[in-house]
Every structure is written in C-alpha cells, then in structure tokens.
C-alpha cells in the first residue's frame, strides 16, 4: 500500500530524514517510535503533503507517486493524518467541517455526496461508537476544546472519512488514560483487511491498547531497528540510548 524508499528530507539545509525506508501492506499496523527530534513529525508532514521540505527519494501510495499529488489529492486517495496539534478554525462548526470534508472526498472519488440527513445519521452513529460528546459537533472546530477532546475529534474524523491509510502523529501525547482508551478503541474498531495504520509515538503506552504488527525505532532520520510488538517493550525498558 505505502512504499517509502530512501526518503531524505531537509529544512533550510538541515537534514532531518536520512534515507528512511518503510513498506506498509494492507491490514497492517506499524508503530514508529523515536525520541524528540528523530524526524517523526517530519515524516507525517511529508506524507500528508505539507510544503517547505526539500525532499528526495520515493514514496508510492498504491503505486502512485505521492510527490506528484497535492495534499487534498492524497486525502482523496485515502490518506488521513491525525494531527499532533489539531488546528482551531474559529466560526466553523465542527459538523459542518466534517460534512464539507467528507463530501469533498466523496465528490473527488465520483461518489454521491451525502445530504444533511444522511450525514447527521452517520455522524451520530460514529459519535456514539467513539463516546464523542455530540454537543461538541455544534461547537467551533477545536475552539475551546481540551487537548483530549481535540484528539478524540481527530479520531472521529478518521472514522467518518474511513481512510485506507491512517497516520496518527503522537495522538497519545497529552491524553489521560480514559481518553487513551477511547482513541485506541477507535483505532481497533476501524482495523480492516484493506486498511492500514502508521502510529507515531514517543511511548509504548498506546501500544498496550493497539497491538501493532511491526515496531520500528527511528533515530537521526532513519529506521535503526525493526521488530514485533516485543521491541516496544524492550525500548520502554532500556530507553532510546541503548539503541544508539
């Protein structure tokens, strides 16, 4: 599904990713763990199409070259990024944003756009599944939301957009244990044979609730070790230091 080959990225002459390579197949959950400054957020930014990076290498998503696609085109193809810091958009109602987003994607795929009633039914069901407070749907997007509410809102968007590849950029940071469980349950309930997850995190904690198929350790812009779920535990015990 996603093939990253020897990805290098620079910002203002500073190298951040130095030959990053990763393959993700449908149905898999990959976790990338790494210390601060290892290049985790740069990776998610580049995958989502954020500008401002000087990149080389290759990224293929379902055999199309990601670099030739605009941010929104990547979203249309089924790439979703749960942001580390979800943005506030004052004056824009959360459910209006969600509907606009879903219909933009459906339209780009040649699918029928949902009318207000169909959308309402969908969003109500998904909110219930995720224990997302429906009242928040009528509030301005992320404005006045707590850190946990913002992250839950990202997961709600993910479940409504139903992407092929979901990238979770430190979604667990700043969450209390209850919110963490809700986020994890959300991800688990969306796991299918034909979709995949890339979970970027500092801590092993989230992986107690989401069982990854593969764990990778990212340091200095490249993967230095890959393994199964046991690698996360080892990392938790020994710290990143022991891998360097």
């Amino acid at each position, binding site marked *: 599904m996603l093939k990253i080959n020897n990805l290098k990225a620079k910002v203002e002459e500073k190298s951040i990713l130095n030959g990053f390579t990763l393959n993700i197949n449908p149905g898999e959950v990959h976790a990338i763990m790494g210390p601060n400054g290892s290049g985790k957020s740069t990776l998610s930014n580049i995958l989502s199409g954020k*500008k401002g990076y000087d990149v080389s290498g290759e990224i293929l998503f379902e055999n199309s070259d990601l670099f030739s696609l*605009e941010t*929104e085109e990547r*979203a*249309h193809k089924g790439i979703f990024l749960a942001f580390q810091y979800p*943005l506030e*958009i004052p004056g*824009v109602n959360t459910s209006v944003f969600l509907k606009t*987003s879903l219909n933009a*994607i459906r339209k780009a795929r040649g699918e029928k756009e949902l009318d207000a009633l169909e959308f309402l039914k969908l969003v109500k069901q998904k909110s219930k599944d995720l224990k997302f407070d429906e009242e928040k749907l009528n509030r301005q997007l992320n404005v006045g939301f707590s850190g946990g509410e913002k992250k839950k809102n990202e997961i709600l968007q993910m479940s409504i957009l139903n992407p092929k590849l979901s990238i979770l950029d430190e979604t667990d940071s700043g969450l209390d244990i209850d919110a963490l469980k809700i986020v994890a349950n959300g991800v688990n309930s969306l796991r299918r044979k034909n979709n995949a997850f890339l979970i970027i995190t500092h801590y092993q904690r989230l992986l107690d609730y989401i069982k990854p198929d593969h764990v990778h350790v990212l340091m200095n812009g490249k993967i230095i070790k890959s393994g199964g779920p046991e690698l996360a535990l080892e990392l938790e015990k020994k710290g990143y230091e022991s891998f360097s």
Partner: protein
Amino acid sequence: MKIDSSQISREKEIEKLKKYKYGFSTEIENIKAPKGLSEEVIKFISNMKKEPQWLLDWRLKAYNRLKALKEPDWQKPKYPKIDYQDLYYYSAPKSFKEKPKSLDDLDPKLLETYKKLGIPLQEQKRLNNIAVDAVFDSVSVATTFKDKLTEKGIIFCSISEAIQKHPELVKKYLGSVIPLTDHFFATLNSAVFTDGSFVYVPPGVRCPMELSTYFRINASDTGQFERTLIIADKGSYVSYLEGCTAPMRDENQLHAANVELVALDDAEIKYSTVQNWYPGDKDGKGGIYNFVTKRGLCKGKNSKISWTQVETGSAITWKYPSCILKGDNSIGEFYSIAITNNHQKADTGTKMIHIGKNTRSKIISKGISAGFSDMTYRGLVDIAAKANNSRNYTQCDSLLMGNKCGAHTVPYIKNKNSESNLAHEATTSKISEEQLHYCQQRGLNSEEAVGLIVNGFCKEVLQQLPMEFAVEAQKLVGISLEGSVG
C-alpha cells in the same frame, strides 16, 4: 505557430466572464439625457419623470448648493479626477417611455437579463416569499408581490411612483435624514437621482416578507444615482435587501446612491446589502466607484435600525451606513463584511450618533484583504452630552491574505457624557499555512479551504442576513477570494 490576436482577446474576455458571472451587458435601446451636468439636464430628468414643481425646485436647490461644494478627498483610496461633465445622468430603456403597466408589458430582453441575474421576476410571484423591485440603469422596471403587500397597507414601489402617488410621504421624509446640503456626493444625488425604491410600512404592521431591490447598471458612461427611502411607522417592522451587479467595462463607473431610513416609535428596520458591482479586472482596470450615502434615523423611542452589508464588489467602496439614535432607548447596529482582492480598495465603516438617552449601538466589522488590495475600517461613535447611559460596543477584525495587501482601522470616538460606556476591540490576523494544510489534508482544495476559513471568520455577520440570502452571500465570499492563494 501563429496566434491570432483577436483570438487571444476573445479568450481573455471568456476568462474574465468566468470570474465575474454578472459581467454581461444587454443590448437595449436607451433614452439618455444629454451628457453632462446642468440645470437643463436636471429639468430633463424631472420632466421625463413628470415630477411636480416642488421636487424640481428641490433638485435645483441641491444643484446650486453643489456648485459651492468640493469633492471630499480625505478618504484612503485615491482615484483619478471624475469629469462630471462627461457622464450621462439619465438612461432609460426606450421601451419605458410609457411605463409598463404590468410584467407582461416588459421588454423581453429585460426579463431575460433579470433571469440571467437569477431574478426571475415572473416566477418570483409563485416561488419565493420575497417581493422584488428591479432597477435597471436609471429606472425601476418591475415590482412583484404588490397585491399581497397592499392588503396590509404596505407601500413598496419605485420612488418615481411614490412621488406621483404618495407625494405627502415623499415630501415629508425625502432629505429628512440626509439633507440636500449634506456633502458632495449626497448633494449630487439629490440633484440628479433617477429612481430607487420606496417603502412605507403603516403603524403596527409587520411586513410579512423580505422586500428586495436589485440594482443593475447596464449602459456605459452612465452614473447610477438611485434614491431609496424607507419609513417604518410606529410599531412596525420591515426587512429590506438590496443586491447590485453591473457589466464589465474597462472604464470606471460612478454609483452614488442615497439611502434614507426613518424608524418611528417602537419600529424596526433591518437593511441588508449584498454589493457585488463589477470590481475591475485583476490588474485594477475598470470597475465601479461605489460612493454611497446611507443613513438611518431612529426618530422614535425604542426604535431600531440594523445595517448588514456584504461588500465584495466595486473598484472602490466608500461608504458609512450610519444611525442617528435620536429616540430614547433606540438601537443602532452595523454588521459588515468587506472583501477586497486584486486591486480593489475599500474605506468603509459606520457612524453611530447617540442623541437620545439609553441608546445602544453595536458595530461588528470583518474586513478581508487579499492580493494588492487595501482596506480601511473607519468608524465614528459620537455620544452627545444628554445621551445618558448610552452604550457602544465595537469589534473590528481584519484578516490578511498574502503580504501585498493592507488593512487599517481608524476608529473615532467622541464621548461627551460621563455616564456612557464604550468598548472597542480590534484584531488583525492572517490565515495560517497550518490551517490551510489542515483543511487540505481533509480533502478541501486551497480555494475551498480559504472559503471555509473566511466564512468562519465572517460568521457573526453572515448570521444577520435573511436566510434566503445567507447561502448566496457565503458563496460570494468564496468566489471573491478565488485566485488569492498561491
């Protein structure tokens, strides 16, 4: 490969048309007054409209006063000198020499024009609960829903018709809010105004539908000077909306309207504008000079006047819809969205003049500038010595897109009453790259993303619009900013 230059200019035309969908003109034979401004021209206009002597005298008084007035020049947007002798002050479709008796008598070409503009005058009757008065160049061409309004005693017609049929009302209120000596453009309007709308709502009547006027400048070299007068008698309510479009022309066209509102005791007037005059091309060529005087008088106690404006068009917008809060406990409101893109300029805001006791005013202004444009909010809050316990709240937010545009806020505050209370808040922000990226990651292209963010920014004002027009205005906000993100 050889490229035919006419082909290029044709393609340019098409490209332009795509951007401003109202940019067509209609070929209709016109009767025009001789070019230029003179006593003869004013007499010609008055004569064409079969006006009574008092009105001609009034016009001539304004004209004489005008000679002593100077065009103001304190505004931020500068423009080349206007040659007032090189304009036509009256242009009417030839077929109107005798005013049409009903919609069926209208020139089919005119009906076609209004259909293109999305104002199907005939179908309007059945479809919407909105009464429309349409003004084409200088004359009002059709008013719908007349019967239903007459039942309630509401008068909604062109001002020319009102002058003939309700002279006592016109005589009493015309110029009572904007005196004919007021200032250059207002006085010019008083001398040469051609048509516009007239509304009178009798005591205790709540107007059952939105009243709407659609203004269209069609002929070239023509100024449009319409005059609107709305009177809400005691305890009545009316909501009125005006929309404006014009064809694309390379020269600038002057639009200097006067709008007067009078609210008597316990009456409320809600006046909404969606102004989408041709803004000029992307290099700043052509477009309308929108120099309009709009003023409301809260004459009676507990009266209320609320202005809502969405200003997206015109090369230069220069206007300050204002409220004179004369009656005790009266309320004035001003909600504004002004958008400038490319080389457009705007200097707009309001004046709230508190005279009565316990008067309140609220100003919410949202300015968005993009491209090379320049936007100024200018507002006056004036609280008179006897206006005890008056309050004002002002909020001015500016949103900048790109780094070649400007936004300025110029609030004037005069408070002569120590019991009164004023609050002013202002913010300036930019749409952040991060916000755009977030929206794009959710599948919106950059223009959709900007449209969404800007609509959020303007929400408080958009909410004030009558529902039927809020959706249209939202779309307009998006369209006006097309091409502003690189």
